[in-house]
């Protein structure tokens, strides 16, 4: 009975939070299929530790940390790189129609050009709205490291953002394309 209760509680939580985790994962990796894999691995790890979650004040924060570390570990892991490479070979990402496709594709490309830790820092700071200290805790690094990664990430993305700003000011007919 205890196991059934535990599983039911876990399932309720994981089902409710998976869509949010999927979005964060997508911003980290830039590929919906890989995002699904990351979420799958993250909630599996969460299940293994679910018995201890009653002692965790912020389960959302905990599971987000698991997700980011799973993403970063994948970048280090030969298995992960192999899987990612095979995924890219066999499941090419298809463009999904949408109202802001140009902007989304451009930002996705700009994000993908960032080193993984910079990307994670930018996503945690500006999508998850975490403070420097919270980001440092999630990434197991110093606040100084978060600041420097944020600065570099923003510098790299500024070219994309400035271009979009210029395009918005110029209007659709004068959109800058290079």
């Amino acid at each position, binding site marked *: 009975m205890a196991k*059934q209760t535990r*599983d039911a509680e*876990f*399932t309720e939580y*994981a*089902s409710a939070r*998976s*869509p949010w985790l*999927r979005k*964060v994962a997508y*911003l980290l990796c830039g590929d*919906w*299929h890989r995002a*699904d*894999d990351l979420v*799958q691995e993250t*909630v*599996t*790890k*969460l*299940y*293994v530790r679910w018995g201890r979650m009653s002692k965790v004040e912020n389960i959302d924060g905990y599971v987000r940390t698991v997700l980011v*570390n799973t993403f970063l570990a994948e970048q*280090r892991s*030969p*298995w992960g*790189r*192999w899987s990612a*490479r*095979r995924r890219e*070979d066999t499941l090419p990402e298809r463009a999904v*129609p*949408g109202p*802001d*496709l140009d*902007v*989304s594709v451009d930002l*996705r490309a700009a994000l993908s*050009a*960032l*080193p993984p830790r*910079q990307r994670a820092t*930018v996503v945690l700071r*500006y*999508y998850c709205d975490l403070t*420097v*200290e919270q980001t440092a805790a*999630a990434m*197991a*690094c110093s606040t100084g*490291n978060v*600041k*420097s*990664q*944020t*600065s*570099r990430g*923003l510098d790299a993305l500024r070219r994309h*953002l*400035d271009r979009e700003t210029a395009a918005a000011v110029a209007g659709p007919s004068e959109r800058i394309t290079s």
Partner: protein
Amino acid sequence: MNDPYDGSSPLNATEQRLAAELTALADSPAPTAASDTAWAVRTGRSRLMRRRLAVLGAVTAVAVGAATLNTAWPDGRSGSTTVAAASATAGTAGLPLGPDTGRDPLVVQGTFGPLPAGFDTVVYNKGFSGQPGMSQAKAIGPKQTNATADFNRQLLFLTVYAPGVEPSLDSGGAGPRYRVDTAPVNGRPAYWVGSAPDNPAGLGSDWTLRFQTADGRWAQLQASYMSDADQVTDVVVQVAAGVRIEPQAVAMPFTINGLPAGLTRAGASLDYGPESGNNRAWEASVIFMLSDKSISLTAAPDTGPTPSPTNPFGFPVQEQPHSCRSSQGVKLCVSAMDGEAAFASIGGFAGLLDRVTSLGTDENAWTTEVIR
């Protein structure tokens, strides 16, 4: 000093725009989600069960290993970074290596010598880095010190560069990196890849030592999730001094009676120690290609029947198409992401699996004459 990135100031226009665009990107139309909570429950249960079994097994193995093996730093130093006695099923002590005869799919250019306490799992692989023929070695240690998260393990990565290749300081856009010279390793030049001219610490939380080997090639030892609290610089230098740089074939727990026509080797790996995949004592794999499709052969200790494919919630279970059999305590599986039909020309999964002979769980019976 005003710091624009300290988080205490309101977002500027650029940051506001970035936040808005990130939200728009995350909310953009997406394919149907493929993750499955029920699958996570099933896999999580399996991991918990294996972890419990591994704990039971490790108690016996460590007791035997401590009594029979005596591994230590080359200079015999003692203290908090002394090397633990390796167990019979952990670390590199019991891992058979041999010369490259062309019959072993897992030939690596460098292997670990003595490792610090807690580094009880090694992983060797070839062909997984995206560069054909390149091998890597990884040692997995204790949990990261003083971390909020409790799942990061201290890691040491060993990379050996090809003859004549001078490793670059280019970080790929992650920021400037500097050569910070340090004391020679085994009498040969060595340097840290630092984040400043006088700071050996690397970008992020990594530490990277490069050192020249006896044959003139460069090798690199990278430490992740380690800090001053772990005496990271001392540990990395000591491990570097003990690595063995020469082509060595890693013994595998099976033989393959010839390869079906059209099948080519693409990669191989061996995880060896309690932190191996799925908490098994070890796991070996070879990946082959048939045209542009990959098919993998995996061997691991057979820990008994896997949990039922049905789950308590009635959801369908996702599994990569595979075929398995057990022999001499080893579970041998062939699987492919593209399914068995893509390999009809070689007789499907059985066309490969039927050629495989298990050598059992005793490492001393494993061989480097794998493909015969």
